[in-house]
């Protein structure tokens, strides 16, 4: 298919551009051990990646992206700092939209660098923006680190904060937890009834399964303790609601978030990082004044990003997935690094979509 060859040529060209920017070209296996990906993403990944298996190696996944293998490779024997680029097929199971591709080429650029995260963020974003020049795209940006900092600094128990942190990327469950922790929604009746019993562990049904009676007793204790915890204050809740709703051009968003920081001072360091990033972007000639910033951006689809996040979308083509996406994933390196960690940021382009948009523009 000539179109396929053209897309491949475009991918090679993009990777060469990233090599010229200082990245080392790397390869990754198409088959990845399923266990690592399942541990990271949970069962949800089975809905998005193809799983296959053999009797010797067990379950394998057709790589759904390059980030995990590239991080593993870097953590195993990478020198610091490092820049990598790659181009190759990724495979995504599609169960809802037959028009979405289940196999497409990604070209990526990843930076592992401890020195200057703001500068690294700006470098990735600027390189991707340059590669996309000429296409009519809208950039969306956000920073999941601000919400994470806000949650970690809430005046409530560690258990509640851990529950919220676990669901940062699941907005509905996150909201349900917040509503309960703030007393906006009463606890479920079954829980109230359980805690009203003098001894919920009296006359237990037969003990079956791996979860022991001791674990059940422990959770009931935790629920009792949690029932005594005062609700998250209206002031903190109002500030969180304002934070989550911030959607402005970057300089205004920063202003709004500074207002939020009056009630949630814990976000100040994250805001300093945002400001440094905006300066670094401006220094690279990007139009920061008109850059969109959305505090909730990236919470539903970008599960491992924990700081700066971005995506480029085709104007007038809301049916298309983003043409490019990226972000910071410091925590992922921690989880894959066996104790080691390194700040990392990266982004990917989809030459197939770029090619289609270019052709559309020419037509």
């Amino acid at each position, binding site marked *: 298919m000539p179109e396929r060859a053209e897309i491949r040529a475009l991918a090679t060209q993009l990777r060469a551009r990233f090599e010229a920017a200082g990245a080392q070209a790397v390869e990754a296996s198409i088959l990845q051990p399923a266990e690592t990906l399942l541990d990271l993403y949970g069962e949800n990944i*089975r809905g998005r990646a193809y799983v296959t298996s053999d009797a010797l190696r067990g379950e394998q996944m057709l790589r759904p992206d390059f980030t995990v293998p590239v991080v593993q490779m870097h953590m195993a024997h990478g020198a610091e700092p490092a820049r990598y680029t790659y181009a190759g097929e990724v495979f995504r199971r599609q169960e809802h939209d037959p028009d979405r591709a289940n196999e497409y080429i990604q070209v990526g650029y990843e930076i592992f660098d401890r020195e200057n995260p703001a500068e690294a963020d700006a470098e990735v974003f600027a390189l991707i923006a340059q590669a996309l020049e000429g296409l009519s795209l809208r950039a969306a940006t956000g920073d999941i680190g601000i919400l994470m900092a806000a949650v970690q600094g809430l005046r409530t128990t560690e258990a509640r904060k851990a*529950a919220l942190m676990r669901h940062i990327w699941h907005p509905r469950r996150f909201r349900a937890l917040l509503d309960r922790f703030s007393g906006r929604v009463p606890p479920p009746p*079954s829980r109230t009834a359980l805690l009203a019993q003098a001894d919920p562990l009296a006359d237990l049904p037969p003990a*079956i399964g791996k979860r022991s009676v001791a674990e059940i007793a422990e959770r009931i204790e935790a629920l009792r303790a949690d029932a005594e915890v005062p609700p998250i204050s209206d002031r903190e809740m109002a500030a969180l609601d304002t934070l989550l709703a911030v959607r402005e051009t970057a300089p205004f968003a920063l202003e709004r978030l500074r207002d939020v920081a009056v009630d949630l001072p814990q976000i100040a360091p994250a805001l300093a990082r945002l400001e440094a990033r905006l300066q670094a972007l401006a220094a690279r000639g990007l139009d920061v004044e008109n850059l969109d910033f959305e505090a909730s951006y990236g919470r539903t689809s970008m599960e491992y990003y924990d700081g700066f996040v971005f995506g480029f979308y085709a104007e007038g083509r809301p049916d298309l997935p983003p043409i490019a996406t990226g972000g910071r994933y410091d925590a992922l390196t921690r989880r894959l690094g066996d104790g080691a960690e390194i700040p990392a940021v990266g982004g990917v382009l989809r030459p197939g979509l770029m090619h289609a948009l270019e052709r559309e523009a020419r037509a």
Partner: protein
Amino acid sequence: MTVKLGVPSKGRLMEKTFDWFDRAGIRLKRTGSDREYAGAIEGIEGMSLVLLSAGEIPRELATGRIHFGVTGTDLVHEKLPLWETQVEPVAELGFGQADLVLAVPQLWVDVDTLDDLDAVAAAFRARHGHRLRIATKYHRLVREFLVRGGVADFALVDSQGATEGTVKNETAEAIADITSTGETLRANHLKILSDGLILKSQATLWKSRVAQVGDAERATLERFAERLAAVQ
């Protein structure tokens, strides 16, 4: 070409399907020996009977190899993610009622909702070093239900039969399975979560939206529809 009707090839589901069509004056029967899956239709011209496993009927409908098929809502929803575009329900047959539910040990007195299950899954993974296992054969439906409900840290393990026994055998911590009365669950010391109903299912007559229909078949389809209208 004839209009093909696919029905389950054995058991009570087959018998009840035969009874249901009988009331419309359409006689389905197996032919040949007991072991041979061949059948015939009497009482309507231009139709032929295909005996299939209930689990294969969704796929046969989706590819258009049969025009009509009888199988459970659960199987259609599990096997055909885009079922609305591939098949259309014609009639609910009023038998084979079953609910796909999520059940945990009765012992878990602290667990009644998905919210509880999610909290327990997090603690379980921290303690045992693996995700909380849920045994099922309805992988897609269960996964989507749990993800929608915001449950994390679970793993689905495949169980094609005797699913209720997996908890006692410690190959799973919870199950998602079809139940009609809940009796088997109770007998195995399991309980259904209060918000754990994943899907209500019953035997249903489906029409393929993709099967080829020529002029000859169209007349048969009309006759078939008239007969069906009479029983509903």
